[in-house]
């Protein structure tokens, strides 16, 4: 517990105190006291994405999970791990690596904590293979606004007893309660890595290549697209992880398939001796492998810098080329440069916008949203200067389920004390 300083501000809102409980019980005590006092609380994990969502309506207390930092139990034989929310994802991966296992989540932020990753539903390139938080989280312990501690799920992968609160809390951005513990299912770390990569000249060409890949029997871990801007080509990178002979053959087949789909000049990157590759990008980035592992580690970087405007458009694979073209058009119309990357296999596009003042950037968000809406593609602001966020809703419309979401919030946090105003529809 200490008084808050200017660096503790959350999106412009200045808290008065920062408190760092070191256990579930302490977290519950802090929240109960905050509840009784009517203090508005924002949770902070690694603080890497505290700017996510709308600026809070106000904050009195920052609850930091920095002292909830223990890996509680790694049941290697069961491929399950139980961790406290403040454990950094990179540290967790490092703890799992000796057993040849990993948690299949690879968001770009190195500082991210387990709690933050769950609360923000963070993901990375390998979501194509492992899914997202909702697919890997099998148990959760949360503390509600009034200090009530609750668990759901458990230590077993298969479990349908009771409601799945883990799903509800994944992506809830600290608005329903504080995540104090999470239990995940794990995967064996792959022994080898291979990559196929090709230049693509236009969004439509990338789209055809991705369609052909997805329709094939190949099993990539990731299909990533990197496009610095509309004036040059983009790069499509297809990642394979598994055992040596398997991944090398798949990468070679991918190169052929890309050529057949009208994408010439595909290159295959191999690590050399099978077994040399590591779980780079997931296991703490040790430089163990050759070309393929290095290429894999470079995947998934965000196309924006801190302080720029970064948006995320989730369309599904078939909508991606259209969404990319739309983002470029609207950016050009506002005189902005747009760099894009995409998890092309799942259809999640991210774009960083450069140039222009806050008004222009806000106009871009609203304009792009409007153009994308008919294609059922939502645009979410993932990073933005405060002035931009003051002019737009970070989330955009969420449809006819909003009243129901409000009711959920109302039940879990009736006094509206947790991250007020940050979430969809002002929740």
């Amino acid at each position, binding site marked *: 517990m200490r008084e808050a300083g200017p660096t503790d501000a959350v999106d412009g809102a200045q808290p008065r105190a920062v408190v760092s409980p070191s256990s579930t019980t302490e977290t519950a005590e802090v929240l109960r006291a905050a509840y009784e006092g009517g203090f508005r609380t924002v949770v902070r994990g690694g603080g890497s994405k505290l700017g996510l969502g709308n600026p809070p309506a106000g904050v009195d207390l920052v609850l930091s999970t920095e002292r909830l930092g223990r890996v509680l139990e790694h049941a290697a034989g069961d491929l399950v791990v139980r961790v406290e929310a403040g454990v950094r994802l990179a540290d967790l991966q490092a703890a799992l690596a000796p057993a040849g296992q990993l948690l299949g989540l690879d968001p770009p932020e190195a500082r991210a904590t387990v709690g933050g990753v769950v609360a923000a539903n963070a993901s990375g390139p390998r979501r194509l293979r492992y899914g997202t938080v909702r697919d890997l989280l099998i148990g959760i312990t949360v503390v509600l606004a009034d200090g009530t501690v609750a668990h759901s799920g458990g230590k077993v992968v298969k479990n349908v007893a*009771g409601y799945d609160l883990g799903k509800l809390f994944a992506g809830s951005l600290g608005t329903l309660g504080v995540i104090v513990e999470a239990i995940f299912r794990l995967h064996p*770390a792959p022994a080898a890595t291979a990559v196929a990569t090709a230049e693509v000249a236009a969004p439509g060409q990338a789209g055809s290549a991705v369609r052909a890949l997805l329709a094939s029997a190949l099993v990539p871990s990731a299909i990533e697209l990197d496009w610095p801007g509309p004036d040059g080509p983009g790069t499509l990178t297809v990642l394979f992880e598994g055992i040596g002979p398997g991944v090398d053959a798949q990468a070679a087949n991918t190169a052929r398939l890309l050529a057949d789909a009208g994408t010439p000049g595909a290159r295959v990157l191999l690590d050399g001796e099978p077994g040399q590759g590591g779980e780079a990008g997931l296991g703490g980035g040790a430089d163990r492998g050759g070309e393929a592992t290095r290429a894999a580690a470079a995947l998934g970087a965000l196309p924006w810098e801190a302080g720029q405007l970064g948006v995320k458009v*989730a369309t599904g694979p078939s909508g991606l080329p259209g969404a990319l073209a739309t983002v470029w058009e609207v950016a050009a119309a506002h005189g902005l440069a747009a760099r894009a990357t995409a998890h092309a296999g799942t259809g999640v596009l991210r774009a960083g916008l450069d140039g222009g003042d806050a008004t222009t950037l806000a106009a871009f968000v609203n304009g792009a949203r409007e153009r994308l809406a008919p294609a059922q593609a939502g645009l979410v602001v993932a990073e933005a200067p405060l002035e931009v966020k003051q002019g737009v809703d970070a989330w955009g419309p969420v449809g006819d389920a909003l009243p129901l979401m409000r009711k959920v919030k109302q039940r879990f946090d*009736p006094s509206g004390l947790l991250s007020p105003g940050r979430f969809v529809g002002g929740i």
Partner: protein
Amino acid sequence: MVDRQRLIERMRAVLGPGGVIAERNQLRTYECDGLAAFRVVPALVVLPETTEQVQGAVRVCHEEGVPFVARGSGTGLSGGALPVSDGVLIVLSRMRRILEIDYDDQRAVVEPGVINLWVTKEVAPRGYYYAPDPSSQLICSIGGNVAENSGGAHCLKYGFTTNHVTGLEIVLPDGDLVHLGGKAPDPPGYDLVGAFVGSEGTLGIATKVTLRLLRKPEAVRTLMAAFESADAAGDAVSKIIAAGIVPAAVEIMDALAMEAAEAAVHVHYPEGAGAVLIVELDGPEAECTHQFEEVERLCQEAGSTTIQIAEDDDQRALFWKGRKSAFAAVGRISPDYYVQDGVIPRTALGAVLREIADMAEERGLRVANVFHAGDGNLHPLVLYDGDVEGEEERAEELAAKILFACLALGGSITGEHGVGADKKKYMPKQFTADDLDVMQLLRCAFDPDGRCNPGKVFPTPRLCGETPGKRHVHPAEQPGLVEAV
């Protein structure tokens, strides 16, 4: 008490005369689901054909203060679709259209009454399938799968229903229609799709379901390895997992389960085996071939007596037929049986099997074991003869004790059949009172009047009441914050 005649008339106005069943004899058809030990005749059964009719029927229930229960194919094994005597049973089996298939985005949109296997049949010619494959897949509905978060043999690698549903249209208990999720990933807002899947019909009625489709793997390899005991088979599974292999499916059947299945489908299990292990790998050809050799070697290392490899799809189908018919086949070796569903951490397999055997022996009962060994989901089948005085009670008691053993090992009271009416009494053994109360907050958000499948899942229904309003203390009036916390 509601005026039944009035209810019938209002329902007929919504559904037409053919959509309402009110005659006692016909109502009895619906008195139970796959768990026949619980029976209740509903006041009324309605058979909507459209979302609008579901909405209309639910709205009538809401206005008349009548509880309702959804029913798909009625194959549930926990009494989830058990009717309420003064309530309406809403049967979704006439909503059976596959509405849309989108191969590019690998999604299908279906009505809730669509049978699980129909989805795969529909998309198989194009090389796709729907992954969750409960043994009941020939008859159970997608709506029922969503409600139960059903699993199947191939869920070890590919996940359960919840990992394959990306969107839902649901009718809320007050008749409102909402759309959750959709085809695209990461919809903003709370993951209410995730909250709804597995909620056992207590949060509303699903009227449209968006499913993920998967591309058929390039190669599939299946083997059946015999062992002296289920324990030894479990050991082989541990070795396979420790080698970093994630099989598509890993199933174990013990001697008694084999005996039953053999009588039913003639799989030709090896003579004298104490257990068989079925391992299926799928994926890219090169990887599959390599890992399959390793699996074979690991089975031998663990002491497998014989290993049979499926030569073709027919033989593979036979291996699976033996496994998938095991529940029903047990009827051939015992007049009555109780299907239990519990979960343990996979590594505790040997321990729990020994405990089950001891407990069964103490009570003079036989237990046939069938399990999804990869994820620790056990299905002990407790055999008994209802005509023998006291045997049914002993069987029930044993079934309960098996669950407690699972819990003691850090497991769960249900891995896929759900809590329903059957296991709600055990929920307090797995969860604290606070856990259950917090789960009910979700229930209250969806169904504040508790009219949607009441009496299931939770031992004591919570009265939702008014949600407390904003608190009055304003932070500005609290200068001593730092000291207060």
